[in-house]
């Protein structure tokens, strides 16, 4: 999804803001799902749980901007992996392939 993420403190959080990512507790359990819209009462609940900052969706990228960003990210990725490939003794190709999917915008399930 072509969203722009922004980290905000709980004090800056406003009802209507949308979480860009799932909010996890210290054990990695999901407290709030990605895409959830904040309400005054969720913000108050987060404060009770001593959550201090959130990653929110700060806007959408146009298809064109998104395409440009992906092209740039993938080109950079190829540059970083320029000394890898072809070897069957290491896992670099596996990491490279996964990282390419990530940079092309595949969302974690």
């Amino acid at each position, binding site marked *: 999804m072509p969203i722009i993420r922004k*980290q905000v403190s709980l004090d800056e959080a406003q009802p209507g803001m949308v979480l860009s990512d799932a909010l996890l507790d210290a054990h990695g359990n999901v407290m709030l799902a990605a895409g959830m819209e904040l309400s005054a009462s969720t913000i108050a609940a987060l404060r009770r749980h001593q959550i*201090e900052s959130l990653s929110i969706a700060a806007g959408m990228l146009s298809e064109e901007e998104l395409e440009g960003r992906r092209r740039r990210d993938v080109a950079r990725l190829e540059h970083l992996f320029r*000394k890898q490939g072809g070897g069957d003794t290491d896992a670099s190709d596996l990491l490279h392939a996964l*990282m390419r999917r*990530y940079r092309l915008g595949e969302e974690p399930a």
Partner: protein
Amino acid sequence: MNLAAEHDADRIGPDRLAEQIEQLPALPEVVMDLLQNIDREDVDIGVLARKMSHDQTLTAKALRFANSPFYGTQGKISSIQQAITLLGMKTVRQILTAAALASVFPDNRCKGFEFRAFWRHAMGTAICARLLARMLHLNQDFAFTAGLLHDIGRLVLVTRFPHSYEQVIAYRDEHDIFLLDAERSILGTDHVAVGLALAERWRFPEVIRHAIAGHHTPEPLGSSSIASLVNVANGIVHALDLAAVDNDLVPPVSLDAWRNVGLDDAAYLRLFRETEVEFEKISSIL
């Protein structure tokens, strides 16, 4: 031109290395204690706080870390006791380790070496290794500290042999090779061996020594799962470009380590995202 002869002065034999490591300031006693007892949580907070009170630089640095958005405390922590109460002993141990290292190896002039990039990479690897440990139900504390310390030998080289390390960087740039290989060509040693020598001197616990020794070539299955985590986390963090070094290279990721970690694709994609999100929170103080 006789390259080998020209670089003779840059060779670092065991004696020269030992001599320089000898001259390094000791880690603050309090940090030594914490590292050597990394598997213990029953640390006497009163004693810890008293030892810390003699080291204002360390205290100031540690509080700066503790108050970063990474820990979600928003500037509310004003003492080490308070940090322990709010964040817990494990987290304070991580904070003190990072703060102490930054004091022992201050920025110096080694042309081409960026301390900020070094710390960004070290902290990124620590964060990624900790997230991996959480997914695999391994000790997150070990993983974080091992990730933070895996390249520590490089700091010894840069601060104790700055001129020689400039040659390493120039050689790397000229040939576009891994920094590790440039170290071996110019110095006759590398940051792994040097890191191990330092780990002996500072009596790091075994799990950390394994991770330093094995972060490029972890031994096959079973030796230390933390070394495997650090090998994989190291590769991921280079690939995520967290240090943002122009001519960076992703080092080979060990197939044994990859199999040891054994996550599925979806878990890796989540890990990449979480590493970026967590890193973002701490990058403002690095």
